């Protein structure tokens, strides 16, 4: 192989290396597309008007989940609140991704489901039931 042939090969290796570097930069510098988090609004709408019968201190009460949440929030350690938590948790696990419900009423809060990570993109929906506030959040795991 002549000196010019070697030079041509070296030039090509250099050019291919630059192209490889460009491809690498393309993948490294281009951020991976992130799927938008699941919409919390329809899930809260569906959850809030779902009906269920739960035992309270005065006997079984049939009401919407939103009403149960608002009623359980002042006493989050009670047996009734635990039943409400179990009911809501059963619906949350059926949803794609992860979900969390927090009900604020007076100075108390009833929390159901894991808290979203600080770095996660979340969607949230808020529903007021009497003087209680139901906050529903969803995100991808």
């Amino acid at each position, binding site marked *: *192989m*002549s000196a*010019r*042939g070697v*030079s*041509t*090969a070296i*030039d*090509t290796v250099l*050019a*291919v290396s630059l*192209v*490889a570097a*460009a*491809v690498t930069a*393309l*993948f490294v510098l*281009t951020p991976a*597309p992130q799927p938008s988090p699941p*919409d919390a609004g*329809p*899930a809260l*709408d*569906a*959850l*809030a*008007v*779902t*009906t269920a019968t739960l035992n309270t201190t005065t006997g079984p009460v*049939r009401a*919407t*989940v939103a009403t149960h949440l608002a009623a359980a929030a002042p006493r989050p350690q009670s047996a009734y609140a635990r039943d409400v938590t179990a009911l809501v948790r059963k*619906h949350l696990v*059926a*949803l794609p991704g992860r979900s969390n419900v927090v009900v604020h009423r007076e100075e108390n809060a009833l929390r159901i489901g894991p808290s979203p990570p600080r770095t996660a993109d979340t969607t949230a929906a808020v529903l007021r039931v009497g003087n209680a506030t139901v906050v529903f959040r969803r995100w991808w795991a």
Partner: protein
Amino acid sequence: MSFSSDRAQAEPVVALVCVAVLCTALAGYATAYDHSLPTADRDRGPPVLDAATDAVLVDAVARPDHIRDALDATSSAVNVTLIAGDRTWTAGPVPPAGADAASRPVPVRVAPGDVRFGRLRVIVW
């Protein structure tokens, strides 16, 4: 007129191989660049799901007896399924494989005063 071997161009075989390698590398770069761009694939599921939801919901609660209204709410071929617990209602033809699909949670009225947490799913093609 004659040329000495020292003044020749690059050897033809080496030059051809190098050009082929370079072209392959550039083609690879073009492919990688194309894959890095956002695709414009149109998903017909979400808009059809919105139309079906409007047709099925009555006072914000899905009514299984209104599920066929969802078929009239869209001009596309669509299969609509309403799921509440272990109960399922379906309307529309059997969808082909690979059709666009979308779903959302909805409250489903299964009896007077009995509303279940359910899901509305559409498959459109």
